[in-house]
């Protein structure tokens, strides 16, 4: 088991490195850099001005070198600008010489500087991540119990009317992407056209104080899309367990149906959905980006959109590191959890 986790961690590290390098490479392509220089400087920059801007800030160094600087294994660039000022990656011109550090990358805990928000990337990502964490907490709180309940109810009597209705409902929710359900919810419950106005169509105020009125629609929108999938997996697992021999034995012994479901079937039926729920978390990230854009909730997904549409290289890298780590860690947890929960795999 220890070796297995160690090997998985190694693969994770390699994957994260490859992915960040791909993001790094794509964001550092020349047309992207040119756009960056023009948005940071001014839009009527000449080609020479763009080149000198980029050279001074170390953007035109070879790709592996730049990547090394960002990682913190290669000393940061130190260049002298045209006006004689020193422009360096790791310190500003007025820092005393003895306090100047040579390395500054993510290994040193320095995530860089956002060109869009003019702020430190580390703190920026942390605050936005906390806001998204709040959103995700409520999404999980709504989605997981509801989905499990639907799945168990549908799966305990396969083919019954209850099963049919719930299965159709879960197919309907998996067929509704967030931008469709979100639009419909806002139109029906928050617009003047239908006149209901039960909820707010924007979740901006939920960043400070979340309440039912401004936070329920975004939470519901994200949960619905994932809910159907988890419910269907739970249903499949539950129907499989309900046809097992030991359930038949229990029925023949005359155990009450509710006891069979609660005491005999449920625990075994929940092993498979656990993996599915863990693997759903990265998918939820997509929903988070869409919903945060739609409801104007300035969390991590909103940050991703801002960073990507403005080619804010270091912010985008930090965002992708976080999301890649989320994906890989949830995969690892689901693998370990599956082995841990299922004795048949653990023993063999």
């Amino acid at each position, binding site marked *: 088991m220890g070796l297995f986790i160690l090997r998985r961690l190694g693969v994770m590290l390699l994957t994260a490195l490859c992915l960040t390098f791909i993001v790094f490479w794509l964001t550092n392509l020349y047309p992207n850099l040119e756009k960056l220089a023009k948005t940071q400087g001014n839009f009527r920059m000449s080609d020479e001005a763009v080149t000198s801007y980029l050279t001074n800030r170390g953007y035109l160094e070879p790709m592996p070198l730049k990547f090394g600087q960002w990682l913190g294994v290669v000393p940061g660039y130190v260049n002298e600008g045209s006006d004689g000022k020193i422009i360096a990656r790791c310190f500003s011109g007025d820092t005393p010489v003895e306090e100047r550090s040579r390395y500054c990358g993510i290994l040193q805990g320095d995530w860089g500087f956002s060109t869009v928000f003019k702020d430190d990337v580390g703190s920026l990502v942390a605050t936005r991540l906390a806001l998204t964490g709040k959103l995700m907490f409520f999404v999980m709180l709504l989605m997981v119990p509801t989905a499990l309940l639907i799945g168990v109810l549908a799966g305990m009597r396969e083919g019954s009317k209850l099963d049919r209705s719930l299965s159709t409902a879960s197919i309907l929710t998996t067929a509704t992407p967030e931008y469709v359900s979100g639009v419909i919810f806002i139109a029906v419950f928050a617009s003047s056209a239908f006149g209901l106005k039960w909820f707010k169509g924007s979740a901006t105020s939920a960043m400070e104080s979340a309440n039912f009125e401004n936070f329920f629609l975004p939470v519901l929108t994200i949960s619905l899309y994932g809910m159907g999938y988890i419910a269907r997996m739970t249903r499949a697992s539950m129907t499989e367990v309900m046809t097992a021999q030991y359930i038949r034995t229990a029925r023949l012994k005359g155990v009450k149906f509710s006891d069979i479901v609660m005491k005999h079937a449920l625990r075994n039926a929940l092993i498979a959905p656990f993996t599915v729920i863990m693997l759903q978390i990265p998918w939820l990230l997509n929903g988070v980006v869409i919903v945060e854009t739609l409801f104007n909730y300035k969390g991590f997904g909103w940050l991703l959109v801002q960073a990507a549409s403005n080619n804010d290289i270091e912010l985008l890298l930090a965002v*992708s590191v976080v999301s890649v780590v989320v994906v890989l860690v949830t995969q690892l947890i689901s693998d370990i959890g599956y082995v841990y929960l299922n004795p048949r795999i653990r023993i063999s």
Partner: protein
Amino acid sequence: MEPLSWTGSLAGLNLFLLLALGIMAVAIAAQIVVGIVGTAGGRAVNADGTLSSDEGLSGFLGMIVKYAFFAVVAIGLAYVIGGILLGTGAGIIGGMARQFLPVWVALILTFAVSLAFKRKLGLYGKLFDSTVGMIGFGLVMFWVFTGFFGGLLGLIITHDTLSQFSGMKNALPGMPLSGASETDFQWFLLGGDNLARDVFSRLIVGSWIVVLIAPLATLFAFMVGITLGLPAGYYGGKLDTFLSFLANLILAFPVILLFYLLVTPEIVLTGIPNYMAAVLFIFPVIFFTVLLNARYYTQPSVRTPLLIVVIGALFWAYLSLISNDGAIVANDSYVIPGLPTMLDWIPMPPEILVVFVSVVFVNSPTVFRIVRGLALDIKTRDYVAAAQTRGEGPWYIMLWEILPNARGPLIVDFCLRIGYTTILLGTLGFFGLGLESESPDWGTTINAGRRLLSIYPHAAIAPAVSLLTLVLGLNLLADGLREESLRD
């Protein structure tokens, strides 16, 4: 002119529809409650020793649900038929029903032919044994025909999709067209968007983009996934480790981040999407070449002419797909020449190519994983061992023994994946990536409409509901296919 109401002169039916829907909802709820409690009807032992039972409460409720459902369907049909006869006299729904006339005819023909010959049509025919599958197929074919007749032939649409009509900005559904001449269609059936264009016509034309790109992109993703997944599963070892690592690498990317990185004008300038297209689109050529070669290499007299024709045709299509204006990649610093324009029979605008490539790229790793898993499972079967003993080559076994036996799950996943691709296309449009902002496809329209969502929701709701029905149809279709393919 008066604005149209939703149902016009058929408004009398609304009450009955509501009544039928209400009864159905109550009866279904009651059915569920009764299902949990679980009552059986009374049973009686007959003189000959057989048992007979009445239907009981659940049977009674089932009957109510059935008749209420028939009533809802009948009233729905009445709206459509009344609409075809009365046109806009039957309100917005009537007007739309008449515009959709070619679609209804095509749908009825398709269903009539399929139902008549369903025993001879294999898995497709079996689909018509399951209600869910039929509903799904109906929904999907509705949009396919709508896209074909409206988007390609220009039959259903009422106005030009790009022209703006004065006074129709954010017009509500059913508004009469101000300043319309005799020949114009007199109403905006689903209202106008914030640039005073007709929502209904844009919806119809947009469906063609979705209906065309989504299945094709899924097909390409399947080609890539199958061509790489079969050897990965069959050979295993280092090849498998490497390919799986690559697949997991792409899967670990958040889809939206990948889209933002690939589908920006700056990246298009560098020509990266064109290189990706050149790599991804070669897979169908490889697939069919290997497929035919593995089958016929023992008969060179058949194989050689067949391969020359097939490779020639496919390679021509491949070159036409990836080249544009006589070049594969054309940017400021260099040009890679491609097929000359006069031989280029597939017009592929650059922005469509980017969207296409990124959707294929995102989908293929998942297909790869599915195919690899299936191959791992099937390669242990006896018929594979038999083929190995006969001395068949590995590619013959993969493509002619394993692949046909994996077709059930693959067909089901294909349907589901078209739905997922539709969602991805909508996501791209929602973030304003790829297609131009005046493109009528559903995602872009939702994106344009969402800014005024709280005041004029109709411009965003129409494409949202359409996308929902199409994806729902594909999901139901997949469900029906799964049910029917498991049965044998």
